[in-house]
Structures are given as structure tokens and as C-alpha cells.
């Protein structure tokens, strides 16, 4: 079979068109990828900036709270609002150095008085005889 003289040119044209399409696609893909990289980078940066912004706001609020809780400020509020709060200066635990039971009985105001100072009563044991 005789080969057509235009076959070479057809093939070449086809190859060129294919190369053109492939190159174009790759180019478009590269551009799209780069765009996505840019979008992602910007979005990451915006997110980081937002996180930093929120952290700064939280920090500001925290500082404000702590400033408002300063002892001198609280004392000032206590006075201006007439709250009458007093610092804890009373001992929460009373150190009892006297006889504890006697004290408890006395405070209860009833019951028999314990005579701990009296000598113990004699106890008689009946011994079995073998």
C-alpha cells in the first residue's frame, strides 16, 4: 500500500496540537496550583492573625480583671459600696488548752460534771476458788 505524502504532516500537526493541549493544561494546572497556594497561605496568615487578635483581646480582658481585683481597689469598693467586709483575722480554729471534755460539757450547759480529778473508784474482783 502506498503511503500518503501528507501522513507525516498530519501526524506532526496532531502531535503539535497534543503538545499544545498538554502544555496548556499543565500550565493552567500550575497557575491554578499557585493560586491555591496563595489562597491557602493568605488564609493561614489570616487565621493566625485572627488567633493572635483574639489572644490579645483575651489578654487585655484578663489584665483588666486582675487590675480590678487589686487589693487596694477592692478595699476602695468595700468602703464606697458600704459592704462592711472585713479581712479574715479571727482564728478559724480555737486552740483549746483546758480540759476538752469539761469545756464541751460546760458549753452544752447540761449533763453531769466530769470529776476527772477524783481518784478512780476501787474495783473489786471476785476470784474463783479452785
Amino acid at each position: 500500500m502506498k503511503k500518503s505524502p501528507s501522513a507525516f504532516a498530519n501526524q506532526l500537526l496532531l502531535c503539535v496540537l497534543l503538545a499544545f493541549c498538554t502544555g496548556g493544561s499543565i500550565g493552567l494546572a500550575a497557575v491554578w496550583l499557585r493560586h491555591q497556594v496563595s489562597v491557602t497561605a493568605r488564609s493561614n496568615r489570616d487565621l493566625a492573625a485572627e488567633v493572635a487578635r483574639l489572644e490579645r483581646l483575651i489578654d487585655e480582658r484578663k489584665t483588666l480583671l486582675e487590675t480590678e481585683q487589686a487589693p487596694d481597689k477592692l478595699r476602695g469598693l468595700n468602703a464606697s459600696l458600704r459592704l462592711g467586709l472585713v479581712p479574715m483575722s479571727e482564728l478559724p480554729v480555737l486552740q483549746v488548752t483546758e480540759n476538752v471534755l469539761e469545756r464541751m460539757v460546760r458549753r452544752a450547759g447540761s449533763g453531769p460534771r466530769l470529776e476527772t480529778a477524783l481518784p478512780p473508784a476501787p474495783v473489786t474482783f471476785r476470784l474463783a476458788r479452785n
Partner: protein
Amino acid sequence: MSRGFASNRIAVLGVTLFACFAGLGVRLVWLHVVDRDSILRPVVRARPMLIPETARRGDILDARGARLATSRSEIVLGVDPHSLVPKDRRKWPELAALIGMPEDELREKFTPRYAPPAGEAPAPRTVMKPAADDDGDGAPALAFDFSPRATPPADAVGHEEETDPSADPREPRPILWVKLRDDVPESLHETIRRLNIQGVYGRRVYRRVYPSNQLGSHLIGFVNREQQAATGLESYADFYLRGQQGWRLGERDGRNRELPQFAVREVPRFDGYNVRLSIDSTVQDIVEQELAALAAKFRPAKASIIVSDTDGFILAMANYPTFNPNEYNKVPKDEEARMKNIAVTDVYEPGSVFKIVPAAAALEERLVSARTVIDCGVDRATYNGRVLKLPAEDHAMGRLSVAEIISHSSNRGAAQLGMLLGEERLHRYASAFGFGTRLGFPTGEVRGTLHPYKKWYPIDITRIPMGHTVSSTVLQMHQAMSVIASGGVLLRPQIIRQITSSTGDVVYAYDRAEIGRAVSPETAAEVARMLIGVTRQGGTATNAAIEGFDVAGKTGTSQKIIDGRYSNRHHVGSFVGFFPAQRPRVVISVVVDDADRTAAGGNGYGRVVAAPSFKRIGERLIPILGIRPGGESAVPRLLARNEGGRR
């Protein structure tokens, strides 16, 4: 159409396409290889951008985690008058109201102006080109071009006006930055941003804030407006606190916005570590309230109070007069001494509190026991062949045991204990108790005075045991008493508990640090027992006693040297002690300088001006620190007797 013609057309088309591709290829090679440098040069010069990231200075926390010093981000708000647009004009009054500036002043600042050419008049500073909205919040960090005219940003926020760096210095230069306000809080800046006025932008800076105002101010110190740690722990722990600035190198677009996808190098910022102190804000507040009460009652020249545990960690340290580190710049020049931590920077003669040294030394050396009786009625004694005059007493003492010498605070008894010891041993024990040396406190400590014993005058052996001719800081005297409270060991006074990262991880933890052993535990316990006598009936400071607790302590009153002489009208009164005596939990020192004018009887004796404060502080610490009476408890003993009685 012939077949040959068609094939020729295809061939021509193919060749044309080839030629186009070849042309494109050649052009690409030309642009990317041959002409690359000349094309890139202006781009390289214009697009790179260095964005610094300011590290946040770490916090200073108290023992319970409350922030004593912190950093707050603020905005230095400014305007580029040349960037303003007419459509924003209607928003100016609102902006003026938000920043609290008269509208006329705002309009004046918004008027475009030019700086005179260099050499004619002092020109405003050259501006850094700001990166527009680098993090999307309208407060750009400074961005720099790499031109040699760019100046460093160290104090960029401190200037009122700045000019365009690219302008010819021989011509009038446009002023591109006029400061509007330098302490705009983040929340207010958010509101200003929403106004969206073109040309108004801010620069973010961190400012140091002390939420508790003067609480612990002498310890914490302050950071000045140039962000330099000036005094106190701010300065001592600056290495940990300051962190490390970060930066990123990238490119910007034509509107001066960062192009994050072209970031080529990034060094992340490293926020400073937090420093956690042993200071307890509650205890510190109690101490400062007591100092304020002392100041109101006695109007002393100065006063100091220290509270520590028995491991050497300071729970509170305060001085009068004091200052507010938020307003350090409002302290008058002639009153700057009030910013000193006088508990460690100033020395005084400790007076009778020092008697614990000869007493402990004589006991340790087995020269005496607590029951050994010494004649304190004699006014002269022979020492090394010399007859020495013994110091005077407040009242006749007679024969006293060593325990009574302490509880009655006999000067002559202490002098004779010193003579029993001799110069060398007395000096050795005084050094072992921490006198004459720095104890390693972080900030500003001085060593005090304890001369080498070979340089002592003969009379010194009778005066040093009663706390004269020797000088110490309040902290040194406090640590000397801590030797007795901690079983005979001299401890390093410490104030930092931990260094933690911003995420809370412990980077370094400080532990009890012993400098050395001064006396044996038995001797320390014996001296503690003797010191209980001071606060009991017959002692010199019964008003320091706390009901239900054994309080060990010692009063001290030393005459001040006025015009080169010991004055009878100016005293330093002190009380240093600890409780519970058998199992100490806290050591408290109260030192009041020159309270004579208003003290009862006209003399600022330790028992009058300092001992009551010790008692009040101690009583308030009991519930806060959960202190229980130490040693043998009365309650279990009684319970045991009752149980026995029932059998």
C-alpha cells in the same frame, strides 16, 4: 483543490506553529536568562519585606498564679495625612471622640505637611514604610525596605512625626506619620478600625502593666517606656522574661500587602518565660497594710517587713515608703529613694536582735548552757589583760541565766558571752549567720559591715555582741533568725520559685538552697526555747505573743548615728521572730527606722514600734497559711489523761 496543495498547507501550518513555539521559547530564554537580572532588579528592590514579630514579655506571677506584672498590647495610633481621602472626612469627628482628642487638634494633625530640607531645621524622623495591614487587623507591624536609608525600628513608636525615607533630603519631605495617641487599647482599636478611615493606622507595642499597683513594687521593679527593665526582678530575670523577637522575610504586592506565599524565611517569635515567685499576694497585702498602719501611726523615716518560710523562700517583702510601678515616672526626683528595696540595699545596726549570735555560739562551743548564770550587774570586766567597760543597761539586771540574758535583753550579759567566745570565734559565728556577706538575693543586695576581727578595737568585743559596730541589711538579720528557725542552717533567701514557659511547662524550678550550717540543730532548738522567753511574762516583747502559739523572737533597738554620734532621740526599732517555736512555719521581721517622734515615751523601741506589728501579722497569717501550734500539743495530752481516768 489538488491534494499536493492541501499537504503543503498542512506543512506550512506545522512550520508556523513550530516557529511560534520556537519564538516563545527564545523569548522565555531571553527573559529568564539573558535579561533576568535587569528585569528582576527593580522587583527585588521593591518587593522584599521584612516583618518583625514582637515577642511578648513574660508575666511575673505570685505563688498562687496571680499576675503581678504582665504585658498588654497597645496600639500607637497615627495618621498619614497624605493618604487621607475626602470621603472619610465625615468620620473625623467620631474618631476624635473615640481617642479623646479635640476635633480642631485632630484636623490640624490631619493636614498634609512637609518637613523642611535637611540642615534647615530639626527634621522629623524618617519613617519606615509600613506594611499595609500585614495581619489583617489594621495595625501593621513595621516593614522595612532594604535601602540604606532605612533606619532601625528600635524607638519607632516614640516619635511624633516621621518623613518619607525615599524623598530627597535636600527638598521638603512629606510627613507620612503623625502620632495621634500612643496608648490605644485593643478593644478601642477594633472600633477605630471599623471606621475604616484610609490613612489612619496603628503600630502594635507591648506595654508593661502591674495590675496590683504598688503590691510588691520594690521586689518586682519596673520596665520603663523604652521597654528596658530598670530595676527589681524585671531587671534580674530579664533574660527569661524578654523572649526573642521573631521576623519573617517575604514579598509584598503593589499595594504594600504581604504575599504570604512568597515567604522565604521565617524565624518565629519566642515569647518570654513567666517567672513564678514565692511571694504570696495575700501575705504581701497584709504586710503592706501593716506598713501603712505603721507609717500612719509612727511616721517613721522608713520601715521594712519581711515574711519568709523556713526554706528560705520569701513570702512577702515590703518597704515604706513605696511607689506604684505603673506611675514610676510620677515619683519626684528628690524622692526616688523610695523606689529602692531598702530591705536589701540599706544597712542598720541590728542592736539586740544580734544577741542570738553570741548566745548560739557560746552554746554551740559548750562554753555555757541555758542555765549558766552570769553576773550582769558588773560594769567592767577583764579581757586579755585589759579592763573593759561593759555597755550600759536600761535598768539594773543582776545575775541572769543565759536564757534570761536573751529574754531580758541584757547588754552586759551579751558582752560577757562575746568575751567568753573571743574575737575569732565571735567573728566566725557572725559570718556563719550571714553577716558581712551577700546572701545571694537576686536584686541590689549589699553586704553590710562585719570587719575582720584582727581590725577590731579592744572595746568591740563588748559592743558587737549587742549588735553595735556591726551593720546588716534587714534581710541579713532576717536570715540570721531563720538560722534558728531552720535548725541551724543558713539558707539562701530566694524569691523565684519557678520559671515556666508561656504554655505552662516548668523550665526551671528553684529548691531550698543551703549556704552552710551555722550551729547544730540542738543548739538552734535551745536558742529557740530561750527566744520564747522574750514574748512571755518577764520578756521584753510580751506584746508580740500570739495566743495559743509559742512565739520565739527578739527585740532590737539601736541608736542611730547622727552627726557622727549615737543619738538618744533617733532609734531603729525591730522585732525579728518566728512561730510556732517548736516547729516554725514563718519567720517575720519588722524594722522601723526613726519612729521616735510619735512613739510612746518618745523612743522608737523595738518592743513599742515593731513587736505589735509582728503579732498582728502573725495572727492574720495563721488562717491563711493554715498554721497549727507546733511541738507538744496540749489537746492530745489532756485527751490521754481523760482516757486514763476512765479505765
